[in-house]
């Protein structure tokens, strides 16, 4: 088992580690990240990154996906804990930037003090003042 840390949170998934690579189930990766392998490539929403022709087996073997290699191939940051058990799969600057420039507000799901999850999108139809603070 490893923990995938993504913009959606932490996900414990079965994994096969191989050096800089981490093989995980395609469905589990899609749940943790929104990214999925499709005939046209590695895709999330309307964005697809094609796999290098003839090298597909480096990225996919049966139901398993080489998540870290795919991440790097898509130009996205990936860092890993020293024990290899926690993998942080970041989002590239270009995807972040183009999302922000689309002006469509990125959604987020966060818990209140009682653990109840709230999404920004729960409040569409209203004007939303999204504001941060901290105790520190």
């Amino acid at each position, binding site marked *: 088992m490893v923990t995938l840390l993504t913009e959606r949170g932490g996900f414990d998934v079965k994994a096969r580690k191989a050096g800089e690579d981490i093989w995980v189930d395609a469905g589990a990766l899609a749940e943790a990240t929104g990214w999925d392998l499709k005939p046209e490539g590695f895709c999330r929403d309307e964005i697809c990154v094609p796999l290098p022709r003839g090298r597909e087996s480096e990225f996919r073997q049966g139901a398993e996906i080489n998540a870290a290699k795919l991440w790097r191939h898509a130009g996205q940051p990936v860092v890993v804990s020293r024990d290899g058990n*926690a993998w942080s799969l970041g*989002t590239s600057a270009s995807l972040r*930037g183009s999302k*922000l420039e689309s*002006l469509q507000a990125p959604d987020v799901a*966060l*818990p209140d003090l009682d653990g109840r999850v709230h999404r920004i999108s729960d409040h569409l139809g209203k004007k939303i003042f999204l504001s941060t603070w901290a105790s520190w």
Partner: protein
Amino acid sequence: MWQQLYDELKGHGFMVFAVAMDSRGPEIARPWIEAAKSTYVSVIDTEHRLADLYNMVNVPEAVWIDETGKIVRPTEVAGSGDYFRKMDRQTKALPDDAKIMREEMRSLYMNALRDWVKDGTKSTYAFDAKAARAHVRPPSEDVALAHCWFRLGRHLYAAGNLDEAESAFREASRLHPDSWNIWRQMGDIKHQGQPNPEFWARVETLGDRRYYGKIDMPGMP
């Protein structure tokens, strides 16, 4: 801080979505949230996801989002300013001119928010798409990598792996030195809520540069 404004404006189709960036967990934010007796949405973001998604570097920062989910004011400082740098560092008291500045900025910002909630697209404070896009700060590759390290650091911290967490936070802060969120959160963890003895020295290194970015509104200092 926003409760009064929310009470005043909630009948106009308005919601405050307040996010506490506290990696030490909800219990750290609880006393403030309970004291505020807020009736708007108040959530805790231990992973600083919002900073990653919206390229935020400080608190308080805010984004104005219209009824359709479009950003009409991208990430900016939510009515605060550098007047705090005049604070007496022992007593934490603000001199009178700084207090006046605080009130001016806060009321300008609140009035702008009122204007938008009541007038919508007719408000001079709601940017049209072109102006909104011009105010977006896209992150750099280093910033994207910094958030990736921060997320790992937060996970290691929550798992009790403090040494490795600290080195991940340090790497995040090195990659993204403009983020006070990362640096101050790292200090809050290190000092467990006690004041960070290095805070004012780091503020001093700014010199003439701002701690809080300029708010692009008419009359805002």
